């Protein structure tokens, strides 16, 4: 498997997610954690980009971060998977390496 | 904690490992006094290395790692000087650390 990208900033505040999407490639995984989980919400402007990216990349959202911020998986755009920390670990092991977009 | 090196009639502050607190305090007398405290008399061979370090630092804002120093000295002063045996003979406490100290550069953080 290729790269697991991680991004942790709200895309409403920084352009980290945008760069991650620009430089990541089909077949990779992208895990949204911490404030980045806001980016996968249907209601936000980043949601459409995530939905688009989910066509050829696997998008994951860290569930505990989503819940901490008062949202539920039903509020996420289509095509994203919710994982817990154990799932994060599994992904990190599954992909060839992990690349953080700090 | 600070100490000092006696240079002629004045005291120059150094840290607990003997590096200059204020790099601007450096001059040749300071280097000679530091060496004298280690019972070393600086020769032309020492000065070649010290001056090289000062020039390198002025150019790149970093003291070269030991293998970079060795290679660069070899390139500039010839292979008989660009080896760690030669440099350790001049600076028995370790060429990077000791020579940088005499050269008035920051303490190298490059120890692995």
């Amino acid at each position: 498997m290729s790269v697991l990208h991680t991004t942790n900033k709200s895309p409403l505040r920084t352009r980290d997610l945008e760069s991650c999407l620009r430089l990541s490639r089909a077949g990779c995984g992208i895990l949204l954690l911490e404030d980045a989980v806001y980016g996968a919400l249907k209601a936000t402007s980043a949601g459409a980009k995530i939905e688009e990216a989910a066509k050829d990349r696997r998008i994951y959202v860290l569930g505990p971060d989503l819940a901490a911020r008062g949202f539920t998986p039903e509020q996420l755009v289509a095509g994203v998977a919710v994982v817990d920390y154990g799932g994060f670990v599994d992904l990190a092991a599954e992909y060839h390496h992990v690349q953080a977009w700090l | 904690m600070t100490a000092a090196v006696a240079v002629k009639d004045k005291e120059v502050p150094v840290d607990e490992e003997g590096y200059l607190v204020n790099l601007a305090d450096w001059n040749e007398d300071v280097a000679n006094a530091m060496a004298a405290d280690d019972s070393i008399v600086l020769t032309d061979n020492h000065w070649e290395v010290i001056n090289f370090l000062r020039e390198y630092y002025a150019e790149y804002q970093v003291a070269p790692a030991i293998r970079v120093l060795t290679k660069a000295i070899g390139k500039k002063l010839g292979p008989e000087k660009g080896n760690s045996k030669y440099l350790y003979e001049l600076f028995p406490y370790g060429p990077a650390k000791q020579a940088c100290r005499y050269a008035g550069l920051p303490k190298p953080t490059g120890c692995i």
Partner: protein
Amino acid sequence: MKFGILVNEGPYQHQASDSAYQFAVAALARGHQIYRVFFYNDGVNNANKLTEPPQDDRNITRQWSALAAEHDIDMVVCVAAGMRRGIKDELLAPGFHISGLGQLIQAGIEADRLVVFGD
């Protein structure tokens, strides 16, 4: 699998150290090994034993110390980053030790995965 973890932010100001800790706990629960946790940038502040959050908040430093004790994890505080921020031996909580940046590169070489947490 052997994981290396790099923590680039201090406790409390950012979530990075919390996320790294949760990741480490989950990895251990999955039967993986933590090869090393390396603390860099403001991450060196995680090692400060004088950390004293209110009683109803988590004590991040103590969490790391406890995890390290339970699972024998090597927790390295970068000497250069630590010196800059006044994090020295006498301030270290149990389980942390100070060493050079080479330990970070070594973790990259020896661990199967290096996971970076920061801001």
